[in-house]
């Protein structure tokens, strides 16, 4: 942390509130409006295209309910797994420097860059009977292909970078000195983590889980290869689109958007306040 109480620099970082029209500001405003509209328009258009009757009928369809439900709970399960398995690595990356750290960080980001069908193919190739690991987990009675387990594995794979990077940023924001003081007062590294680090970083951890869930809900390309059935919402939307056309896929898409939006607004609402350090 830098020197506290430097009011001038804090003020100069704040957005300027006096608006003076000039060419630069005009161009900036116009392009900002354009880009926001670019994101919002297709979504709004899609939400208002289906009739209320179609929407009502769709939400009473048990297949649709099951697909949206599966999408959400499998994504949430992936986020919980990312939290449980990714937190130690996020903390390690935030606090230690070691040879090859940049490499590890790049590896964490790989799932963002690898094309989605490739992810599915890669996981499938390891989970099948042709691979020793596939035979091992098969012997344990676990089925990956075409199962909820497979879906969660895929979603964990694509969601992990979002959880780890967000949690890592949260840990990095805590001044190292606070943890040093805790240690000097007699607390072990574990006690320091649970009494100081987690209470100060939990918001970042929750936001990381939300982002991981959001990424997982939107996954299609990898899931469609590992588990076409049981059907998640994106797969169902695609199936209805390719089998019956645009009109039949829209109501499901609208419901998926609405349900997810509601969930994320709810979750973000209680995690919005950023942690403060004196």
């Amino acid at each position: 942390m830098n020197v506290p109480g430097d009011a001038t620099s804090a003020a100069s970082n704040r957005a300027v509130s006096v608006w003076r029209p000039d060419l630069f500001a005009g161009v900036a405003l116009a392009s900002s409006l354009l880009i926001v509209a670019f994101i919002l328009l297709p979504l709004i258009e899609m939400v208002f295209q289906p009739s209320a009757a179609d929407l009502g009928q769709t939400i009473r369809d048990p297949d649709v309910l099951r697909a949206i439900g599966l999408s959400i709970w499998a994504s949430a399960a992936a986020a919980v797994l990312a939290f449980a398995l990714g937190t130690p690595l996020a903390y390690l990356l935030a606090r230690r420097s070691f040879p090859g750290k940049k490499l590890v960080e790049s590896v964490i980001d790989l799932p963002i860059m690898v094309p989605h069908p490739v992810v599915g193919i890669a996981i499938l190739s390891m989970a099948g009977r042709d691979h020793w690991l596939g035979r091992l987990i098969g012997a344990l009675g676990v089925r990956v292909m075409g199962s909820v387990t497979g879906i969660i594995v895929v979603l964990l794979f694509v969601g992990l970078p979002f959880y780890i990077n967000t949690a890592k940023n949260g840990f990095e924001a805590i001044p190292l000195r606070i943890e040093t003081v805790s240690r000097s007062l007699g607390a072990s590294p574990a006690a320091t983590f649970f009494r100081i680090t987690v209470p100060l970083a939990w918001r970042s951890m929750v936001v990381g889980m939300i982002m991981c869930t959001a990424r997982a809900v939107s996954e299609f390309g990898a899931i469609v290869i590992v588990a076409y059935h049981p059907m998640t919402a994106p797969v169902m939307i695609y199936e209805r689109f390719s089998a019956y056309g645009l009109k039949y896929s829209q109501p499901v898409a609208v419901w998926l958007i609405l349900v997810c939006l509601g969930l994320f607004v709810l979750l973000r609402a209680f995690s919005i306040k950023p942690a403060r350090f004196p």
Partner: protein
Amino acid sequence: MIRLESLHVTLPGFALQSIDLRVAAGEFFVLIGPTGAGKSLVLESIVGVVPITRGRIFVDGRDVTRLPPERRRIGIVYQDQALFPHLTVEKNIAYGLRYGCRDPQDRRRRVPALVKRLALTHLLGRAVTHLSGGEKQRVALARALAVDPAVLLLDEPLSALDPNFREEMREVLKDLHRHMGVTILMVTHDFAETHCLAQRVALIHRGRIEQSGTLEDVFGRPATPFAAEFVGMRNFLPAGFEGRKAHLEGLTLHLARPAPEGARFVGIRPEDLRILTGPPPPGAGNGNRFTATVGPVTFRGFTCDVGLAAGGVRLVAMLPSGEFLAGKVATGEQVSVAVDAAKIHAV
């Protein structure tokens, strides 16, 4: 009691080299040095959060070099306090009490006494984020002292405070040291703090201890060119010595006592060089009078630095700005300069 034995710490781009330091029980020891000298790194080595390349650290006679921070019994207070922002004042202070409590009886007496002495009683239930700088600093002190550390490390504890709080905190530190017998190792770059608080001082520069000893030793008899410059002896010149005489280039000065063995420099503070503007007072300079040409003048508020050239030697004298402005001294003029033999330090 704390002792560092030829401590080496190597970090990328910086190293502590051969740090030897001994702080006696109940002592107030100040480690002073310019920014980037390695002061804070010394404290962090003692706390145990930087890898030590070589050397040993003893706390109360116990070798703690390889121990983790939680087993060293070191208290630390940082400039920015590093309070736990999610805990109240009371919980901050009580944070360490559950670990390795040696004597619960003692703790029940000491913690309330500490809270009272630091005037924190009325703040116990408050959130630490809304306290003033001075209050935060007192909470940090109470938190560190609650666990009864063998030594209290202070990392520039007064630097981030408002000037009005600074004096108050200085008194708090003095009081803690005097009445609670706390052993303190403080790091600072501030002379006033050092003079006010220190019993002994070590001067650190570029990761090495330049000099250590009492205030008089370090500030009165700097042992190296850097020490002399740092403590304000801006006239620091190579010299040859012969009994009580110091031969400078084209200038001979008399000393109050014979130069110590191996001395190679003379040091004179600018304020000890007197430019004689009126008729010389009787006995001025104890025989050390010489003529010099006035060179460039730099204003520093109430005083100004006057460059002087005497023989082949360039000196800086300090003069009240008023005297220069009154035209008593002018650049290019010849002036008479006097310096007391006792103010010339052979180093």
